[in-house]
C-alpha cells in the first residue's frame, strides 16, 4: 500500500504540450499539420535568407562582399564543408520534409469519418508539393541527397543512405505530379478553414514546378507538355504578368496574378525572430534578405551586383528610349540623369556614388531610413509566370521549334517596354536563340536565385568558352573547380551519418 501510493505519483503528464500519440485524430489537426509544414519555408536555411542569398552569390549577377568570410567563399565556390550556411540549408529543407512526411502519412490514413475527401486531397496535395519543392531545392544545391518519404518510427531509421540522382528526381516528379493532381487552382471557393487564404500551394504552382524540374533534367518533351498547360490546357488564362515589374519584389501587390507560388513574409507581428529553432506563436515571420542585401551604411551589404549585370541591362533601351525599368527595380545605383540621387529617402553618400547595390528584395523606397535585422516584409517569389513564359520558350527552342519561341519571350520583353524581338533579332537559329534566352533570363531574374542553376543546367561551367565568359562577368568564377558549383554536403552531416556520401563539392 505504501509503495503503490507513492509510486502512483510518478505518473505525471507534460502540462505544456500534447503528446504525439493522441494527435492526428481530427480534421482541425490535419489543417494544423499542413500549416506547420509551411512554417519550415521561413527559416534561415530556406527562404528567409541563406538559401536565396547563396543561390544569388554563386551566379555571375552577384558576389559576396561581407565581413563574414563564408558569405564570400560561397560565391567563390570554395565554401568549407563545415560552413554553417550549408548546414542551415540542408537542415531547414529536411525539417520541411519531416513535417510533410507526417502530414502525408497521418492525414493519408484518416478516413471519411474524420475528414472530408476534398479537404484531405487539398492537404495532401500541399504536402506533396512542399516536399517536392524541398527535394528540388536539395537536388539543385547538393546534386544527390537521401530521399526520406516516411516519418521515422524510431532512432534506427535516422540514418538514410544517399539516393541516386535518378531516385531523387523521380521523387520530385512524383511529388509534384501528386500535388498538381490534388490541388485546387485557388482557395477562393473551397470549404474549410483555408478558404480564401492566399499563399497556399495551388495546382498551378505544382504544375509549373514540375515543368521546371523536367527542364532542369533536360526532359524537353515532358517539359513541353507540362508547360503547355498554361497556354492551351487547364491552366490557361489563370496567370498573367503584372504591369509593374517591381510589384514582384515589394510589400505591395503580393500574391498577385503573376505569382505561382510565393513564401509569405511579414514585417510585423511576433517578437521572436524566425531564424531557426522550435517555432513559437511569437515568431516574427520576417525575411532577412533586405538587411543582408541593403547598401553599405544602411544594412549589412553582404552581397553586391556585378558590374556585368548592370551593363547587361543597358544593352537595349525601351521603345520610348528609356533605361530598362528592370534595372532600377533590381539594382540601386546613383545616376543623376536617370533621377536616382537618393537611397533610403536620403541623398546618396558621396563616397559611394560609384558603387552599386541590390535593390530587389530590399526595403529601399518602402519608407524605411535603413534596414533593421528583423523587419523585412516582402514575400519571396518562388515561381513567377514570367518564368513559365521563358521556360516554355526555351523548351520550344530545344525541341527545334525556335520560331515559336518568339511570342513567349516577347511577352516578358514587352512588360519591360523592350522592342519586338522578332523585329530587332529576327530568324535566330537554335544556338542564337539559346544565347538570347540566357540574356533574357539574366535580366528578368537577376537576384532571384536563378542564374547559377541556369548556368549549371546549361553546362556552361564545362564549356571553356562559356566559362571564360563567366570569369569575365564575375571574377568569383576564377576559383571555381569542377564539382564545386554545388554546395558541399555539411561536414557535420557526413560525421553523423555513415550512410551518407560526400558530393563533388566536398573535395
Amino acid at each position, binding site marked *: 500500500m505504501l509503495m503503490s501510493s507513492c509510486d502512483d505519483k510518478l505518473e505525471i503528464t507534460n502540462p505544456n504540450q500534447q503528446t504525439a500519440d493522441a494527435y492526428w485524430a481530427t480534421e482541425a489537426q490535419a489543417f494544423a499539420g499542413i500549416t506547420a509544414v509551411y512554417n519550415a519555408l521561413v527559416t534561415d536555411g530556406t527562404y528567409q535568407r541563406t538559401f536565396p542569398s547563396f543561390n544569388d552569390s554563386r551566379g555571375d549577377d552577384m558576389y559576396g562582399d561581407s565581413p563574414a568570410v563564408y558569405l564570400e567563399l560561397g560565391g567563390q565556390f570554395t565554401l568549407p564543408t563545415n560552413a554553417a550556411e550549408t548546414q542551415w540549408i540542408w537542415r531547414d529543407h529536411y525539417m520541411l520534409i519531416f*513535417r510533410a512526411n507526417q502530414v502525408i502519412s497521418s492525414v493519408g490514413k484518416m478516413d471519411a469519418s474524420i475528414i472530408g475527401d476534398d479537404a484531405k486531397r487539398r492537404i495532401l496535395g500541399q504536402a506533396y508539393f512542399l516536399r517536392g519543392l524541398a527535394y528540388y531545392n536539395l537536388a539543385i544545391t547538393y546534386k544527390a541527397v537521401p530521399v526520406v518519404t516516411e516519418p521515422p518510427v524510431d*532512432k534506427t531509421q535516422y*540514418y538514410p543512405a544517399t539516393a541516386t540522382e535518378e531516385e531523387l528526381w523521380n521523387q520530385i516528379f512524383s511529388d509534384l505530379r501528386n500535388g498538381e493532381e490534388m490541388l485546387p487552382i485557388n482557395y477562393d471557393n473551397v470549404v474549410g478553414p483555408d478558404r480564401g487564404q*492566399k499563399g497556399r500551394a495551388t495546382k498551378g504552382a505544382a504544375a509549373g514546378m514540375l515543368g521546371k524540374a523536367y527542364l532542369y533534367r533536360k526532359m524537353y518533351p515532358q517539359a513541353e507538355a507540362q508547360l503547355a498547360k498554361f497556354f492551351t490546357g487547364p491552366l490557361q488564362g489563370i496567370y498573367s504578368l503584372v504591369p509593374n515589374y517591381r510589384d514582384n519584389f515589394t510589400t505591395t501587390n503580393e500574391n498577385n496574378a503573376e505569382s505561382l507560388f510565393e513564401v509569405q513574409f511579414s514585417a510585423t507581428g*511576433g*517578437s521572436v525572430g524566425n531564424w531557426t529553432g522550435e517555432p513559437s506563436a511569437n515568431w516574427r515571420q520576417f525575411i532577412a534578405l533586405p538587411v543582408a542585401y541593403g547598401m553599405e551604411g544602411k544594412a549589412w551589404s553582404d552581397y553586391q551586383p556585378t558590374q556585368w549585370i548592370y551593363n547587361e541591362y543597358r544593352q537595349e533601351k525601351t521603345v520610348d528610349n528609356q533605361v530598362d525599368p528592370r534595372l532600377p527595380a533590381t539594382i540601386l545605383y546613383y545616376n543623376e540623369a536617370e533621377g536616382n540621387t537618393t537611397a533610403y529617402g536620403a541623398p546618396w553618400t558621396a563616397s559611394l556614388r560609384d558603387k552599386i547595390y541590390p535593390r530587389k528584395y530590399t526595403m529601399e523606397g518602402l519608407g524605411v531610413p535603413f534596414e533593421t535585422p528583423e523587419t523585412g516584409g516582402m514575400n519571396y517569389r518562388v515561381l513567377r509566370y514570367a518564368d513559365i513564359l521563358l521556360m516554355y520558350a526555351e523548351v520550344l527552342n530545344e525541341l527545334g521549334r525556335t520560331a515559336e519561341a518568339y511570342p513567349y519571350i516577347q511577352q516578358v520583353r514587352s512588360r519591360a517596354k523592350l522592342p519586338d524581338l522578332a523585329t530587332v533579332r529576327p530568324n535566330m537559329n537554335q544556338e542564337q536563340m539559346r544565347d538570347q534566352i540566357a540574356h533574357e533570363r539574366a535580366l528578368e531574374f537577376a537576384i532571384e536565385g536563378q542564374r547559377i542553376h541556369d548556368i549549371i543546367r546549361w553546362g556552361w561551367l564545362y564549356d571553356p568558352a562559356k566559362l571564360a565568359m563567366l570569369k569575365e562577368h564575375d571574377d568569383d568564377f576564377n576559383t571555381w573547380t569542377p564539382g564545386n558549383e554545388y554546395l558541399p554536403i555539411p561536414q557535420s552531416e557526413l560525421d553523423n551519418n555513415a550512410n551518407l556520401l560526400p558530393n563533388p563539392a566536398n573535395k
Partner: protein
Amino acid sequence: MQQVLLSKRGWMLLLFLLYAAVTQVMAQGMTIKGKVTDASGAGLPGASVLLKGTSIASATDVDGNYVLNVQSGEGTLVVSYIGYLPQEVAINNRTTIDVTLQTDAKSLDEVVVVGYGTQRRADITGSVAVVDVADMKKVSTNDVGAMLQGRVSGVSVNTDGQPGAFPQVRIRGLGTFGNSDPLYVIDGVPITGVPRDFNPNDIESMQVLKDASAGAIYGSRAANGVVIITTRQGRKDTPLQVEYNGYYGIDQVWQKMPVTNRANYQILNNESRLRSGTKALAPANDPNNPRFVNNIDTDWQEEGLRTGNRQNHNINLSGGGVSSTYNISLDYFGNKGTYVGNGPTYERYTARVNSTLEKGIFKFGQSLFYARSDENGLVTADGVLAGGRPPLINDLVIAIPTMAVYDPANEGGFGGTLQEREDAISLNGIGYNSLIKSTTDVDRIFASGYGELQLLKRANHNLKYRLNLSHDVVTARDKTFIPTFNLGYFFPNAIARLNDNSRRYESSLIENTLNYEATLGRSSLAVLVGQMYQSENGVFKQGYAEGFTKPYYPVLSNGATSTSSGTEDAHVLSSYLGRVNYSFDDRYLLTATMRRDGSSRFSPVNRYGYFPSLALGWKLTNEAFFTVPKTIVSDLKLRASWGKLGNENIGNYRYLPAINSNVVYTFNNGERVLGGLQTSVVDESIKWEEKTTTNVGFDAVLFEGRVDFSAEYYHSKSEDVLVDIPIPASVGSVNANLLVNAGTLVNKGFEFTAGYNQTIGDFQFGISGNFTTLKNEVLSLGTNVNSRLGVGSITEIGGEVGRHYGWLVDGIFQSQEEIDNHAFQKPGTAPGDLKFRDISGPEGTPDGLIDTYDRTYLGSGIPKYNYGININASYKGFDLTIFASGKGGYLINSRLYRTLMHTGGDDNWHEDILDRWTSTNTDTNIPRLIWTDPNENGRDSNREGWLQDGTHLRINTVSLGYNFKPSFVKGINKARVYLTGQNLYTFQKYKGYNPDFTAGVFEPGFDNGSFPRPRTVMLGVQVGF
C-alpha cells in the same frame, strides 16, 4: 501513506505538532557537559566527544563546549580533534568533564557525517573525504564549490573570475555526458541543483562521498558523487555566544594579453587585405585615404578593466538551554567585478536559524534559511547583436585599437566602427556593458525540520524513528533592458527592449527512516531502512516588451508592444532504501546498502532502478598478529567496495513525443494561423543510467599521528549513459540532439592524501597534500554513432572524452614548387600557408588530397592529474597558511588566443603575430596573413599556439593571521586579524587567462573565454564575545 504524504501545508502543520509533542515527554539517562581546550586554554570548536564502544557522540561548539547524553554514569569518553592526540576519560558519574587535548595527534575517531547518519572515521569502509573546513574558509568566494578546489583528492574544480559564477565540480572525472554536478546534501536534505545561494560561513562540516558504497544510500542521485554539508548548531547549556567575521578586499586582473597597437594593427590589416587580392583596404587603415585614423590608439584592457572589491560580514549568535540549542547567522557578501560598466557584480544577504529541542524520547530540529542575491551579469544578448558574439571578455581583448571608447556623436555616447571607415566588425565591450543592464535577483527560502523518536533504548539495542521534511523555494527574476544605441557597424539597436522573466522552483522532501543499532558480544550492528519522496516543480514566465521611448521607464507596460510566454515543469522521485553496517571485534567491517528509485522522467516500463552496494574493511592494527609497534603504525585499515549508482539527471518529459501546436504561418499578408505537429523527435525508450564503481584503498596513521596517509584506486564504469547525441539533420527534427542511453564510459585513477604535523615548543607546523590521477575512456557512444565532434574535439570509442582533433601541421610552404609536390590542399594555397599532413583518404590511405579524412587526435583535453598542497604553521599568536593547487597533462584550445592569431578577418592581434610569415621572414611557424584565408590556416590543427600546455600551479591562498590573547580586551574572548592574498600568481604556460576554465562536456579542453580570476588582497577580523 497518505497521512505521511501530506500536502505542503500539511507537513508544516505536522512539524509544529511534533514541536509541541517533544516538550511533553520525560527525559531518560544523564547529560554530560564540558569544555574541550588546547594546552593554552583556548576552546577547540568541532572536537568530537564519543562514548567509547558506542556510536553516541557529540561535537564541541565554537568555544569548545559540548553536551553529550548518555545512558548511565559509567563508561569512557573519547575526545578527539584534528591535529590533537585523542584522550580517553572515564565518566565516573561526573556530569561536567573538561578535557585538555595535547596537539600533534591524528585521530580516526572523529565522527563523520555520512548519508542518513554518522559514523566514526575509523569505521568507514567507503571512500569518504572530510574537508578541513577551517582551512577551506580561508578562501574568499561566494560559493561552496570553489572552496573545494584542491582540497580533496579525486575532486576537480574549474571556475572563472566572474562574481556570482558557480564553478564546475567534478568528482572522479566525468561519469556521464549530461549534468555532472555532484549531489549536494545540506543538513540531510538533497537539494536541487548547485547550492548557489548558500552561505559558506554557515558550514560546520563538509564531507565528500566518492565511491558507490558511500554514495549508494543516495542511489539515483549519487552517480556524480555527493557533497554532504552540515551547518553550525548551537550547544546546550551555553550562554549566548556572539561572533563577528568580516573582511574587505580588492580585486585586480593581473594578467594582460599583449595585443598590437594602432600602428601595428593597421600594418597587419593592410597586409592581410592586400594579399587577398580582392579586399580593398579599410579607409581607416589606409594612410592615403582621408579617413585614415591616426589619433586613436585604444588600449582596451587598460580602459575596460578596473579594480573590483569584495567584502563579507558575518554575525553568528549561538547558545542553548537545558533541552534546546540555537544558532543564528546573518551574512552579507558583496563582490564588485573588474569589468568597466554595469556588471558583473554580486551581492548576497543570508540569514539562517538552526535550532533543536528535545525532551525524553523526542528530539526535534529545524533549520530556516533565507537568501537574497542580486547579480548584475556580464551578458551577451545574442538576440540583439547580430552575428553571435564570444564572451564579452574576449570582445574586449580583440577590439581594434582604431576604435574610440567614447563617441558623443553616437547614440549612447560610445565609440564604434563604421563600414565605410574601419570596415571591421568590432564590439565596444565597455559601451555594451555600460548600456545594457542585465540583473538576476534571487530569493531562496529553505526550511527543513526533523522529528526523532527513540522507540527502543536498551543497553545493547537502540531503535529510532525519524521523519525528515523540507521545503525549498527559489524565485528568480531575470531582467535585461536594452536601450536604443549605436555601437557602430553591425551593432546599432534601434528598438529599446525589455526582457523581464521570472523563474520559480519548489522542492519538497519527505523521508521516513528507522534506525536500529545493536551490540552483541564483539559484534555491533546498525540497520537503516527508509522511504523517501521528493517532488520538484518549476514555473517559468517570460515577459518581453519593445519600443520604449525616452526617458526610459523600463517596465513591461511601457513598451509599445509586449508578449508573454511561460511553461511549467514537474519531477517526482519515490525511493526505498536500506543499509546494514556490521563490525566484528573492531577488526572486520561490512557495509551493505540497497536503494530502489522510481523517477517520473522515464516511461512506466523503465521507471524503476535498483542500486546495491557492498563494502568491506579490515583494521589490520587490531589483529593479534600485527606486531608492528603502535608508535610506528598507529592505525592501518584496508578497505574495498563495489556498488552501483543511478543517474536520471535529465530534463523532464524527455521520453514523451510532443506536439508543438504553435507553429505559426502567416497567410494573406498578416493572417497568422497556428499549425501543429511533431517538430522534434524523442527516444521513448530512455531508462536509468547506471554507474558501477569498484574502490580499494587503505588508511594509515603513522608515528603516533604525526603522519597520516591514504591511498585508493577506483574504477568506475558508467553504462547506458544518458546523452544528447547529434542526429543527422536529415531527420528534420528541430532538436538536433536526441537524448538516448548511448554511452559507456570508464573512469579510473589513483588518489593519494598525506599529512604531516609537527610541534616544537610554540612552533606548530603541518603540511597536507592530495594527488589524483584520472584516466577516462569511452567504450560506446550508441548505435550508429562511432564518434561525436565537439569544438575542435572528438569523442570516439576507445578514446577519452573530447580529445583535441584536427590536422597535423608540417611547417609552412616556402615555395610554389613545394606546394605542387605536396598533397592538394586548397585552390588558393600559396607560400606562407600551413602544410597539412596527408594521412588518410576515403580508402584509409593517403590520397594526395588534404580533406576531412586527414584529421586526427591532437592530444587530451582532460587533466591527467590534479593536486593540492596546504601548509599551516603557527608560532605563538601568529598563524600562516599557504594553499596551492594545480593540474597537468592536458592541452587547451583557446578561443581567445586563436581569435587574436587569426590569419583572416579584422579583429586585433596578439603580438605573437608580428613573427608571421612574410617573404622576408620565412623562418617562422606562424603562417602568412591573408584576409580570405584560402588555405584555412585557422582550422583546428596542432600548429603552434592552437593547442597549449595547460599544466599549471596556482597559488590560491597565502594568509597570515594574528590571534590576540583572550585577555587583550575585556569581554572579547577571541580576536584574530588576518591578511590574505588570494590567487596571487599562477605558474602557467597557457597564454589565455585561466588554465582551469569551465568547459563543455564534449570539449573539456576548449576555453571559450573564461573570465580572468582576479588577484585579491584582503584584510579580515574574527572576533568572539
